[in-house]
């Protein structure tokens, strides 16, 4: 699905990356814990989170995240917004809570970037 459709499904505001709305996305990962994002989120996925600091942007950059969806109507901190603009990482803001955001995307065909973790070698 295109990022444009993600925006429509979530009734989201695009605050960075208006020019990237034709980008294709298939998978997503949602968490507020950045270590889990580092461990599990995959390149090209959407990142659904309620964290709004520069760490989110840097981690999205390191993992080649397609776009960040800030849930619960959260707004990025000033530094984070500037960094996202600099690195050209799209940020969408939705008023839906994390659970609703994930559910609404899932029923439209976006799937998790992994289904389950494995016991020991989950990260590899």
């Amino acid at each position, binding site marked *: 699905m295109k990022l444009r459709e993600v925006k429509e499904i979530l009734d989201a505001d695009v605050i960075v990356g208006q020019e990237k709305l034709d980008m294709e996305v298939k998978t997503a990962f949602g968490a507020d814990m950045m*270590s*889990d994002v580092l461990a599990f989120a995959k390149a090209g996925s959407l990142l659904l989170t309620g964290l709004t600091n520069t760490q989110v942007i840097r981690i999205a*950059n390191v*993992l080649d995240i397609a776009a960040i969806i800030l849930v619960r109507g959260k707004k990025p901190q000033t530094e984070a917004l500037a960094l996202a603009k600099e690195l050209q990482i799209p940020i969408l803001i939705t008023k839906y809570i994390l659970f609703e955001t994930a559910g609404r995307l899932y029923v439209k065909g976006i799937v998790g970037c992994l289904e389950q973790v494995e016991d020991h070698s989950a*990260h590899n």
Partner: protein
Amino acid sequence: MVAWNKLKITVHTTKTENYLYTNSFDIEGGNFSKAGTIATGIKSILKELGLPNDVVRKSAIVCYEAEINVVSYARKGFINLTVTPKTVQIEITDEGPGIPDIELAMEQGYSTANQQIREMGFGAGMGLYNINCYSDKFDISSEVNKGTFLKIIINTPQCI
């Protein structure tokens, strides 16, 4: 996949082995606003070297977690990065409080993080655990009130 010999990289020779890249990066303890910048830079370097995506990803994750640890707990530290045709070697040395019980610190969920670290989205006791998971070889040693040393090796599929 890009073959090493097609890359415009000078292969340096030391007495022991060939390396494609080596550098050292300083990490400032307590500077939370810069946390993650070294890992981000290292990721770009490895990508530019033409390493496979999963190797770049693993290395970036390891460096990110280690950098967060140094920023969060130590006074200062540095990352030594060495890329050879077969491995990415990452060494992190810090001057700080050290880890009294390494076995406990390696456990998933164990953390001594303060509120500031938790607000950043870290401090959930996943750092060393993640580093271990993503490394092909992981060594850790620590001395209380002196500091901590990590050595991580990530294997790269041979490209030559």
